[in-house]
């Protein structure tokens, strides 16, 4: 930028550069043009004073803005750490369960162990998603923490390996049944049926209806 021609409104190109002169971001011919014009023009010097006021108050207006959270650096570095470090986390409860399961099945031929593992892992994953009721104190999930069992009649059940998440979810919800624990040895799950004061006839009807779903349920029995 070297020209200082006046615009129609009387503003020169130099005027437009004054803010960058004030922030010392001009160099070369732009800078020398502005300095020459400032020497000649008291109006430009007055304008430069106004710009310095604007600059100062803009900085103040920004400095009073909110700051990021005090632990912003820690959070960001955790993101960096998560991206760069291969996860060597301690095995979670589900992985512990798989380890336990592998040990329990350590006798049969390998293909049988693998098949059983696969079936139960798939089932566990499905059923974990079905535990929708998590009051304070916590219900068990298929692989979750233990906690107090809720009110209501408790049942033991084993689901068919081929049962799908959608089918199980729909059927259990229709019967007002929730999974509250499991899987235990033998692929058994603890279920809760209705509230504690449910009439015996209603409870028996729901149990019978669940047993009738032979494509979904292999076994349903009372908790001993």
């Amino acid at each position, binding site marked *: 930028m070297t020209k200082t021609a006046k615009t129609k409104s009387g503003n020169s190109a130099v005027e437009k550069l004054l803010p960058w002169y004030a922030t010392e*971001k001009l160099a070369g011919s732009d800078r020398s043009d502005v300095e020459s014009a400032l020497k000649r023009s008291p109006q430009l010097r007055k304008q430069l004073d106004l710009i310095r006021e604007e600059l100062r108050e803009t900085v103040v207006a920004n400095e009073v803005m*909110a700051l990021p959270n005090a632990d912003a650096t820690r959070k960001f570095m955790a993101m960096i750490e998560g991206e760069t470090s291969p996860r060597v986390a301690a095995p979670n409860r589900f992985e512990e369960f798989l380890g336990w399961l592998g040990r329990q099945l350590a006798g049969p031929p390998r293909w049988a162990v693998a098949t059983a593992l696969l079936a139960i892992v798939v089932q566990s994953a499905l059923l974990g998603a079905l535990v929708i009721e998590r009051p304070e104190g916590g219900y068990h999930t298929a692989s979750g923490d233990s906690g107090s069992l809720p009110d209501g009649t408790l049942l033991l059940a084993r689901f068919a390996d081929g049962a799908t998440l959608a089918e199980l979810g729909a059927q259990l919800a229709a019967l007002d049944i929730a999974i509250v624990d499991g899987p235990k040895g033998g692929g058994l799950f603890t279920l809760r049926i209705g509230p504690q004061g449910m009439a015996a006839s209603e409870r028996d009807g729901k149990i019978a209806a669940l047993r009738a779903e032979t494509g979904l349920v292999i076994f349903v029995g009372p908790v001993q």
Partner: protein
Amino acid sequence: MIESADDRALLDRLVNQDQAAVRLLFERHHVKVFRFILRLVRNEAVAEEITNEVFMEVWRHAKSYAGNAAPLTWILSIAYHRASSSLRRRREEWLDDDRANETPDDSPGPEESLLATDKSALLRGCIEALTMDQRLIVDLVYYQELSVAEVSAVVGIPEGTVKTRLFAARKRLSQMLLAAGVDRGWP
């Protein structure tokens, strides 16, 4: 200049996944980047999330830093594009041309008038009352201290438009102040 040179050295170290370098870069610039984004998105939680995304992008793509702009300019460019995308997603379109041409009131709002007990406070109220596009340029020049070329690179507008937009913003400030009873004698 020294800071810029230091930043370049830090970016070089990022190429080798140097976590200490990215930490230094983050600590040095994240407040300014956060405030720049906050000015655009007007939501602290969103601004913080985008700030992290910006520095993650710097971390991941340090290799692609061309080196012809100052590192902070590059970082602010990423921030501007991230914030703009976020706004588009939320269908807040005050960065588009219609909004850019929007003319604010000639005077600060009643709150600013009441609170403006001195000229400095009044001037800050007027700065806040600029259009978003004008305010963006004012911040980039006065607060972030970017050159004409750097503002042009961050916002993606020609250098001539940068100068014209700031000039218009300054004239608007004088008009608002005049309406509030303060004659600056310019323009």
